[in-house]
């Protein structure tokens, strides 16, 4: 199949622009990243700079890959990262626009690669349990109802790719933040720090320049792991409780 790609090219802080490439003779069994591999091989052969894009595991779990295809994060398929998106989902002759995630909290590094360090800082602010290595009781000392474990796991599946931020008109990272708050909040092990956690993580989220959630729900549609916006409601509830409990944190 033959495709036309309009790809965002930008080196660091310089002004970016779209450049157009013909991707000819591609197989429908390729993944989208394999298509870019082939395009890059041809660019290198022609003495041009290849397109920079982040990727690593190529099986949809590391969360390193991701960019916009025709305005949709990770392309058109639900529950699919771009490394798992295969060309059989496109038609011969299609014209595709590839852009990096666009958000104040994710500065563009080069072409389709952005800096997502803000996510690490949000986790560092409180996305953990303080459990020192080697101090735990036997794993069966605290039972966890199966339902709680399943709900926690649903939230914990987040891969921190950033699609939720890219999809959001406010560039909010609330879905990412809420997923971690929910994961630990559903489990007995997460209870001692539950309210402190939500305060610290939301504060860091705001400090990173991400916008507020105004319930568009675009994040849920874009999420390759189908994380639900329900967790944002849960986060807001925890946040409210936390602020009442800790009146010093009230604005």
């Amino acid at each position, binding site marked *: 199949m033959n495709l036309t790609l309009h790809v965002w090219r930008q080196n660091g802080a310089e002004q970016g622009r779209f450049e157009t490439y013909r991707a000819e003779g591609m*197989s429908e069994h390729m993944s989208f*990243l394999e298509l870019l591999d082939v395009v890059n091989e041809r660019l290198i052969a022609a003495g041009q700079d290849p397109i920079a894009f982040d990727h690593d595991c*190529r099986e949809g779990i590391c969360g390193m890959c991701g960019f916009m295809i025709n305005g949709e994060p990770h392309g058109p398929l639900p529950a699919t990262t771009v490394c798992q998106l295969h060309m059989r989902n496109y038609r011969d002759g299609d014209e595709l626009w590839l852009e990096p995630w666009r958000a104040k909290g994710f500065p563009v590094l080069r072409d389709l690669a952005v800096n997502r360090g803000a996510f*690490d800082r949000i*986790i560092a602010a409180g996305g*953990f349990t303080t459990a*020192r290595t080697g101090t735990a009781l036997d794993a069966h000392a605290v*039972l966890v109802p199966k339902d709680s474990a399943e709900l*926690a796991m649903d939230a914990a599946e987040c891969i921190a790719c950033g699609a939720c931020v890219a999809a959001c008109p406010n560039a909010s990272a609330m879905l990412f933040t809420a997923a971690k708050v929910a994961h630990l909040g559903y489990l007995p092990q997460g209870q001692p720090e539950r309210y402190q956690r939500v305060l610290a993580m939301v504060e860091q989220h705001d400090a990173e320049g991400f916008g507020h959630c105004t319930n568009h729900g675009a994040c849920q549609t874009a999420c390759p792991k189908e994380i639900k916006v329900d967790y944002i409601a849960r986060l807001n509830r925890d946040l409210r409780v936390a602020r009442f409990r800790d009146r010093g944190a009230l604005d």
Partner: protein
Amino acid sequence: MELNAHIPEGPIEQKWEKHRFDSKLVNPANKRKYEIIVVGSGLAGASAAATLSELGYRVKCFCYQDSPRRAHSIAAQGGINAAKNYQADGDSVYRLFYDTVKGGDFRAREANVYRLAQLSVQIIDHCVAQGVPFAREYGGYLANRSFGGAQVSRTFYARGQTGQQLLLGAYQQLQKEVHAGGVQMYPRHEMMELVVVDGVARGVITRDLLTGKVEAFSADAVVLGTGGYANVFFLSTNAKGCNVTAIWRAHKKGAGFANPCYTQIHPTCLPPAGEYQSKLTLMSESLRNDGRVWVPVKPGDGRQPHEIPEAERDYYLERYYPSYGNLAPRDISSRRAKEMVDLGRGVGPSGVGVYLDFRDAIERLGKSVIEERYGNLFDMYQNITGEDPYQAPMRIYPAPHYTMGGLWVDYNLMSTIPGLHVIGEANFSDHGANRLGASALMQGLADGYFILPLTIGDYLARNRQPRLDPGHSAFQDAIRDVHARTGRLLQARGSRSVQDFHRELGRLLWEYCGMERTEAGLRQALERIPALREEFWRNVKVPGAGGEFNQQLEYAGRVADFMEFAELLCIDALDRDESCGGHFRVEHQTADGEAQRDDDRFAHVSVWEFAGVGSAPRKHREELTFEHVPLAQRSYK
């Protein structure tokens, strides 16, 4: 090169406890005076960095990814073993130890494996405390599943994403320590060189992958948790960035490389589809709990799977190994799949594949149970192949997956270079010639959470010398070497891309040093690799410059190291004139086609000392003794 494994005296059950008591400690107030460099942020690296910081050491942690949470441990699917005996099915520390030594085909060090089995229990406790959402029974107790090479259910899991959840646990603990100030994290940094002064590891040289800045970091000890080298085969289940560079650079500075020929070919991966193929995707071994592996009885049978009646299907693993059936160990299952394909009984468009069929399990348990157990794996399969595995059997084929070989370490996880410790897949220690499923996560976390943080204290307490200034000539010389090497890569301005060279190297190794190896084939590979390497340095084409975000330059550096390492891999495979575990020399097999060990000549660890690129490395041996698990021909029949 002197090899002393420093295995503590005493009964095997008490060695680790005795060793903990005999180890020197660093008092809490003094710990903050020590700086430790940890390279890699996977299960081993992240757990070590976090725990060291909790203990009070100052830690610098480096990873090439944009965040420590992306390390390839994240992709481990099936589970983690632990001798909890929660199923009351006869498991024990001793049984996990026994299974692991036997599964490794008697090429691992007994004392290390026993310690691993002991620590497995604490790992689960710690991970639960971190909030790892392991699968649960309705009563709230932890659920277990079975894995290859075991007849008990001791594998803990979080859907098909156990590695992800364990890594996120370690990552969160790491981020907690970053926030507390004990760990400085350096993402998008690649270790380019180990700095060794007077035979002691004193720091590393890194390259900032965004700016190209080459920088020296000095420390009191260096820890490598940089994973395995399966990407030397080009196509593997590893992430694209996985590489041998850190351990190869350390090897070139004097660290002995142990058993490089022990590579694991995983039996359940998606078959390759075309020339553009960039990686092979693993389908968790846990699928073999409920899936049945088969091929048509008739060679070249072109019918669709549902058209082939029961009598014309060969469930060959169940036929060969009635007691383990579809759960035969990985090396054995992989080789049998290759045998079926070589007999012309392979399936799929290319004929390179076998079926993994869930029809019977869906009939027995219902679709919803299968969906709950493996839903994400089935979705992944459908995404990639466009076929629905609930309707038609999966097609699978073996692919390079894990490497048991790695830098040699003693009982303290220290390499032959004092001050350089190696943890996780990057070391050679616990899996012998074949790793059992769900044991990699266990080993990475045992090393990182429980072993290294203790043993490194003993090293630091016994070896007090002032930290070097990064301005020291050894660091500055190493920086110049790094610049010279990247300069050579950029200036070659040849006509072939890095990927093109990598693909050719991978094909060569897969053919001559893959699932089956012969003397003639290995000799041929050893002739061709130096020629390919020479062409690489002369004819590689790396666009861009050194002082910028340049993914092709990163890749070129890694492939350059694979080009050197590949030769050692083949030298070791040729030298080990026996079959054992994942190392199958066609010349050495039993009458029914199983690996035939030669314990008289090869019950040892082969440890290679670097002698220059293209020069024959010197071989050293660590003799292995088996006092608890008697040497025997493995049988899973």
